[in-house]
């Protein structure tokens, strides 16, 4: 059962597993977070992990009770060591180490967010990162490990606003809805942003594996963007052996790439195609082969400037 099914929500009659979880002693329950309509909190016996998550997801915090509750259970030493992750009354997975557990949790949250958007049937969501300036957004569409988070981080630190590093959502009017989750910086990017490491979070070292979760506020104060429109759509490709290069793309040729990197397109069917055309109508499309990060950022800013002045 997906967590967005009505009968799966907290507040319904709890399952036996949920009752057992409720009876445990918890060290910390996070604030309620709202991620594109999926509201959740996380409880854990480890206050250090709870505080880390509160800081990482601070940009999504809201008042009120969550619809869904994650429970992180560290198994007793007499059992096989490791962690179990529950969503409401359902165990979603068991993991051996703290680092695997945090990485799995952040992945699962993101998956539930996109599932929720898919089933709600309103948001058109793409696997992309995005930044914005004055309500005009640049989105970077690409599969995993293509540098989406890295280029978004660099541009936000350079003064642009942060929309998301993973899932760009558009409502029915074609407005980009921010999803400012923590930036997930992989180890390969750490040397580019050494000051973003979680040095001020004691006790969480064992949860840090190959990924830092960087709160948007750590990139730049008040960095989170408001709703906006796509002004620049970038098909992003990282190639360590190539020269950084921007090539214009015809808008129609961006559509297959967007469809391939969409979480919800097929669910929305015919209407999604019209919506994509409307989103692209106001945007410049380019293909960016990235090697040097500074050069890539300069190129993106130039494209945004060109679009703002009417040069397509």
């Amino acid at each position: 059962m997906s967590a967005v099914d009505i009968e799966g929500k907290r507040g319904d009659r709890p399952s036996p597993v949920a009752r057992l979880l409720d009876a445990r002693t918890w060290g910390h329950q996070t604030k309620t977070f709202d991620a594109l309509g999926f509201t959740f909190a996380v409880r854990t016996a480890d206050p250090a992990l709870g505080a880390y998550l509160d800081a990482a997801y601070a940009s999504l915090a809201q008042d009120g009770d969550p619809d869904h509750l994650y429970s992180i259970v560290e198994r007793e030493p007499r059992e096989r060591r490791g962690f179990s992750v529950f969503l409401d009354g359902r165990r979603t997975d068991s993991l051996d180490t703290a680092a695997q557990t945090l990485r799995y949790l952040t992945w699962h949250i993101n998956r539930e967010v996109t599932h929720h958007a898919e089933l709600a049937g309103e948001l058109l969501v793409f696997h992309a990162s995005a930044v914005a300036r004055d309500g005009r957004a640049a989105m970077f569409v690409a599969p995993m490990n293509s540098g989406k988070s890295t280029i978004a981080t660099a541009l936000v630190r350079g003064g642009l606003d942060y929309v998301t590093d993973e899932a760009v959502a558009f409502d029915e009017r074609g407005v980009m809805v921010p999803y400012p989750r923590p930036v997930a910086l992989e180890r390969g990017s750490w040397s580019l942003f050494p000051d973003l490491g979680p040095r001020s979070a004691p006790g969480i070292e064992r949860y840090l594996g190959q990924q830092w979760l960087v709160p948007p506020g750590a990139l730049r104060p008040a960095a989170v963007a408001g709703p906006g429109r796509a002004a620049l759509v970038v098909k992003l490709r990282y190639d360590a052996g190539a020269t950084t290069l921007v090539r214009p793309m015809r808008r129609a040729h961006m559509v297959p790439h967007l469809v391939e990197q969409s979480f919800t397109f097929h669910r929305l069917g015919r209407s999604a195609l019209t919506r994509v055309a409307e989103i692209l109508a106001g945007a410049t499309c380019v293909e960016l082969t990235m090697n040097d990060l500074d050069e890539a950022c300069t190129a993106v800013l130039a494209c945004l400037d060109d679009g703002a002045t009417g040069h397509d």
Partner: protein
Amino acid sequence: MTEPHLDHAHAHGSTEPDELPELDESFSPARRDAIASVEIDGEAVCYDTASGEVHVLNPAAALVWDCLQVPGTIREIVDDLVAELGLDRGVVSSDVLDAVARMVANGLVVGANDDAVLAEERAPEPVPERRYIPEVPTTCMAKVDDLGWAGSISVQAGTLVLGVRANSEETLALLREILHDHLVVDDDTPPNYSVSLAPPSSGSGKRELHVLYRSCELTIRSRIPSRVVEGLLAHLSAQVASQEHGAVRLAALTLVADGRAVLASRHFRAVIERLEPRLNARGITVADVPAVELLADDAIVVPRTRFSQGGRAADMLAAWDARAERGREPAVVASGRYELAGLLFETQENVPATNLSSMLELLARVSNIEALPGQSTLDRLERAQSRVPSRWAHWSEPEAVVDAAAELLSLGGTTRAG
């Protein structure tokens, strides 16, 4: 009129059609109902809501596509365009015929008189009847049953409902997520497939084996969890494809390099599994699919995995692999069309290595023979056999198997068999 041209920018890896249907001006094209389209900057973007594929038509082809909104023959379309654009009729006719042929080849358009296709699309979707593949309680099956299974799921594959059992709650959770859209509630499903994914390594350096059983047959054994799951998805996809008409489906091992493929006897499975790193090192990859399709032009096709859910499933599998302390292996064969480069058979005692014996083995490996006209199957196998070289090797000489495969794929192998 500029040259009409279909730019094939597919979302799901479709390929440029090798053969275009031969049409004449009496042909009456009709857009398929399943196709949604939108115009962007003069180009037409067509989305096939049934297959998920996206096609981009350049402005000239988009103009032809626009003409197809009104029923008529190609002759009428050409006449209209000549009258409107004032161009040479011969040029316009040639361009329109080519554009429509490409649209037909890519499934955007059918003949207006092709009542079967249009009626099928316009009919309300029938509620599929459920069928099962029963599992016979053999000694072999009992051994697999005794391995202990944490639970099972039922998966709808066309009209079939197939049972997949898993060795642990974790494995079950992974399969539920990946097959989310295909799950059905059905207590009668037999255990057609069994997946055992070992927990992540204990850190001792020993990497665990992950396995897939089809009935009681050990079908895939790998140290990469995603490989087993992708193998399961390929098997489920094949069950759907086997219910459809079309190409000759061959249950053979498929070795691929540089867009070419060798079909090898399944007797080599254990050898090839053991030698896979060596094959990979020579640029040869092994397709983890239960069957491939032999087309009329003797090319073969590795069927697309229909049960994959794109990025999300790929991400999940990558996460699982990461936990297994080993990255995904690059040696995965992409779905698509491959040129047949050769046939590799097993040398058997008391059976001469002749065209007749190899033909008998090929015939025995046709998995959809009941759905095909017998003579056309024979003709197609015979033509394939006569067109490409065959080699024979014995499973006890693994080097000879690798060399023969490399030679057939023109990778510089040393002929030690044949």
